[in-house]
């Protein structure tokens, strides 16, 4: 299989297809998580606002680079002017996905998760 082959999902021109592929969840898993989120999940949006670009190529590259160790809270780097979305399917686990541009990073941080959960509407 040559390097072009995409086992899952799609890439944009400004992304490395390899890092993109490694980072992607299947849509099914996202949908499953979304279903779970209706019960226990939390999504947090920061920044962006009305002027947010739909796609920021700079943030795509930066967020792709920060992907890797799924258990480590790596620095997200510059994400450009667009919004940052934090998604926690289960806040008690401390697991979270952070979306910016066309990138995604996965982190585990129970302290942060608990903090965000405490701020969530009830």
């Amino acid at each position, binding site marked *: *299989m040559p390097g072009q082959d995409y086992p899952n999902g799609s890439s944009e021109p400004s992304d490395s297809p390899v890092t993109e592929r490694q980072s992607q969840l299947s849509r099914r898993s*996202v949908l499953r998580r979304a279903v779970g989120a209706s019960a226990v999940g939390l999504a947090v949006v920061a920044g962006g606002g009305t002027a947010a670009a*739909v796609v920021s190529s700079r943030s795509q590259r930066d967020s792709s680079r920060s992907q890797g160790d799924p258990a480590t809270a790596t620095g997200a780097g510059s994400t450009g002017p667009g919004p940052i979305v934090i998604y926690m399917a289960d806040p008690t686990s401390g697991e979270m996905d952070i979306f910016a541009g066309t990138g995604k990073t996965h982190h585990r941080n129970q302290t942060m998760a608990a903090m965000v959960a405490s701020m969530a509407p009830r």
Partner: protein
Amino acid sequence: MSSHREAPEISKDPVADSTDVYAFVSPDRPDTVTLIANYIPLQGPAGGPNFYEFGDDVLYEIHIDNNGDGYADITYQFRFQTRLRNPNTFLYNTGPIQSLDSPNWNSRQFYTVTQVQNGRFQVLGSGLACPPCNIGPLSTPNYHQALALPAVHNLPGGITVFAGQRAEGFYVDLGAVFDLGDLRPFEQLHAQYGLGVFSTAGTGVNATAALNVHSIAIQVPVTALVRSRPNGVTDPAAVIGVWTSASRQVVRIIDGNGTLINTGPFYQVSRLANPLFNEVLIPLGLKDQWNAEPPAGDKQFASHVTHPELAALLPALYPGVFPTLNKLVQAGTARADLEAILLTGLPPGIVPGFQNFTGPVLADMVRLNTAIPPSASPNPLGVIGGDLAGFPNGRRVQDDVVTIELRAIAGVTYPLVDKSFTPDGAAQVVTDGLSPASVPSGYLATFPYLGVPYSGFDTPS
């Protein structure tokens, strides 16, 4: 339909809903292959003031697998951008649109084409203009010459591209098919649930006869698509697999002031290769999942191909008409013919002078043997009609895929894998009663081959 609104989730997202894929050796440029992916189904031509457009937030892709593993070796990506000249009017156009740069055209779309190969992204063209929708004789006069033809763009590498509205070229009697399969030419033979509605045969009605779609069409030299220059029809290198996909970013935020914010990676929400695959073969509970998967994962869906629900329905709906098919179904026989046609291609030695085999990986792809030249007199029944240049060797715009697949499922192709099998007489004539002549727009002899879209003025309903 072929794949119009075929799955629960994508039926709610028309701009990302793929409806048909075509792949054929170009009849007027046989050194090239034409690939067409249609989106945005069932467009009523008068659908203003916000006429149909591609999604600026959708990643459209046409994929080519040239080594049979069910993954893309070459991908053409299409991204669209809508530009408003004047946001302070509700009008799509403020006067006649007589050229692609007309100041009267308020809401225009442009696009970028990127080729992805060997991990490299190469922008082939950007700022490429789409034509407007066909509104009527005052708004879009001289549509074909003044607006559609100038929207055919030549790109480096001998590539030609077009993206915009076209007349729907796929024909099907939807009203009959979805009324519990009462195919009009045979409706008097339908069990009719004891209602006794039909006593004589009827004539097929093309439900898409007055509707438009949006097409992404790209014509590429054969040598740019195959893994190596093929040495004749039997050379495995002659065969390519083609499919389309649409993807959306994983997160969408509704900002409360009319703004939608999209962020995160693109995930596939729509996929299409062989017509009717997801629509007819995949059960409702799996359709959304199927749309999210690459062809390489289609082994998990193979049982729905080898034991198609429709094969069991035909003998039940038409008692006594398909006795041999009924025996095949009742015996639980796996339909190796359908698996070959739809998931692997036909190996050499099955149909004389033909093969479109890509190997053992089960993957739904439109498989095209690029070494088979275009037919001088195409038969819309393709390979089962003796025309090796038609479906399922690729798919041409005029191919009667509904009849071909009906007959295949009814058993007409089972002798390919069991020469002792004699199909029912009905299997060889079953049809929804339509033909390319059922498409009022007709087809074009040149790229992009699909007909001029119906105008809203002339086709108001």
